[in-house]
């Protein structure tokens, strides 16, 4: 797989399919694993690191017929390509910025990825569109079992699967759900929700743009504890709370319709209008406005944009994607112009010089 092909189509998890996909964007499960016969990543000597990267790559290639994935040598990529993988959530910023041999295996639909030599030797991740934690977990079990046929993972009778940071030890599992909660933000109930989630040991984090402030009402909810509970219990811990949050969000949306319909309509249409007409726009503003439009679509206030297009725009209006689409490096000002063009093209159907590049 070449990264230039990657940019031509978007991942399965952005399709806007799956249960509750108006509010739940994606369901994600990841496992942290380490190979028993090597030190953890920070203590690998150069020679060990190359050897281990080779061994893992070999294993990935052996499993390619079953898992339909391709190995990408992240250390051989340029900055822009690494950034592209970060924006697609296929690798972490940490892996992008690390030094030395490292890589990632990605399957065709981008539902499955395996980071090599990040914080742990392996970080296996499965992502599905919508509220599909169980489906993601079933796929994860299959992938994990295949990997365990070829590799012996560091495991301890008492502590379970061993990880470089004790915050991940035991199951090594992080279950998370990316949710879109604009009405809870507008009605100022979101902080209260976060506090109650923290009390039951769930973590919440925002989706970040280029800056450090979370933007766009997208939130990821995940388990904190990885030890002392089984994988099924962790799935249930996160899965159980999601329907309640969905219900809160729907109630807040009903409230907005009942109590402030004109205001709501104004906000949604204003956002849509800007995105369709702008000539230069930052990624923060884009994400903020896309969030409003997405809410409008889900509430039936805007009818001519499919959810999949909006999900795709969230990823494709980010810097590396824009530059890949354009086929050249762009500075921030040029990106803002290019971003506006791309938005107009996808939302207003405007044909311009963009289409010349296909």
């Amino acid at each position: 797989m070449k990264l230039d092909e990657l940019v031509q189509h978007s991942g399965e998890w952005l399709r806007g399919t799956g249960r509750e996909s108006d509010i739940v964007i994606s369901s994600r499960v990841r496992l942290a694993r380490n190979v028993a016969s090597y030190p953890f990543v920070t203590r690998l000597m150069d020679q060990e690191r190359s050897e281990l990267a080779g061994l893992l790559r070999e294993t990935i290639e052996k499993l390619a017929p079953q898992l339909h994935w391709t190995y990408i040598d992240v250390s051989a990529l340029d900055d822009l390509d690494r950034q592209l993988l970060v924006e697609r959530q296929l690798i972490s910023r940490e892996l992008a910025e690390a030094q030395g041999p490292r890589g990632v295996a990605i399957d065709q639909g981008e539902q499955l990825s395996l980071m090599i030599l990040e914080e742990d030797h392996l970080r296996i991740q499965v992502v599905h569109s919508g509220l599909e934690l169980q489906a993601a977990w079933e796929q994860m079990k299959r992938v994990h079992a295949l990997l365990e046929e070829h590799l012996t993972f560091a495991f301890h009778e008492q502590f379970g699967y061993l990880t470089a940071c004790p915050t991940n030890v035991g199951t090594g599992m992080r279950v998370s759900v990316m949710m879109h909660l604009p009405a809870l933000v507008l009605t100022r109930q979101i902080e209260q929700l976060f506090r109650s989630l923290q009390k039951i040991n769930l973590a919440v984090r925002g989706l970040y743009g280029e800056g450090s402030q979370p933007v766009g009402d997208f939130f990821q909810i995940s388990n904190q504890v990885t030890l002392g509970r089984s994988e099924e219990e962790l799935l249930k811990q996160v899965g159980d709370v999601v329907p309640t949050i969905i219900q809160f969000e729907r109630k807040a949306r009903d409230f907005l319709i009942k109590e402030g319909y004109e205001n709501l309509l104004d906000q949604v249409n204003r956002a849509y209008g800007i995105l369709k007409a702008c000539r230069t726009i930052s990624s923060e503003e884009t994400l903020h406005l896309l969030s409003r439009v997405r809410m409008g679509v889900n509430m039936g206030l805007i009818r001519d944009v499919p959810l999949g297009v909006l999900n795709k725009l969230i990823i494709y209006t980010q810097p590396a994607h824009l530059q890949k689409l354009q086929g050249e490096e762009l500075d921030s000002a040029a990106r803002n112009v290019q971003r506006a063009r791309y938005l107009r093209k996808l939302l207003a159907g405007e044909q311009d010089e963009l289409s010349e590049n296909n």
Partner: protein
Amino acid sequence: MKCQKCEQNATFHITELTGGKPVELHLCQKHAREYLQGEGGEPESLSQASEVLAQYLGVGASAEELARLQQTVCPVCGISFYDFRQQGRLGCPHDYEAFGQELEAVLISVHGETRHVGMRPPRGAEDSQELIQVIRLRRQMHQAAAEEAYEKASQLRDEIQRISQQVAQRRHQPPSSQSESPESAS
């Protein structure tokens, strides 16, 4: 050492693992508890909320104990528990053995538990245990090669291969009775 928030003695030394550089916090019991429960954080700050994502380590250790922790060293990878506290990352799987006691305090503060339940490798911890020795042998081998003790290096290489092959062969055999009953060990 005094607590950073009051005049009490600091009995908790916490390494905050957020972002790139670990930050050391020295707190009394009351303030450590507040900190770990996230009550000190501004609720509107999302990043704060996300950092409650168990990115902290709370370790009860007096300042005098730090010296002792510097001397608790993993025989396989060579890091001390103090190094771990500084960097926030362990050095090798054996650290969970070598720092067992100290780590249990960390695990309690992060997970509220010290015992894994959930998936297990088909053969339990047996293969993992054996392969951890390979880490040490491989390092000895590189050392020997660097010192041009080639005969010793090649002996070590044979030993590594023997262990690795043994484990690889066993992988496809039914598990031994020992690894079938994990509970009997406790």
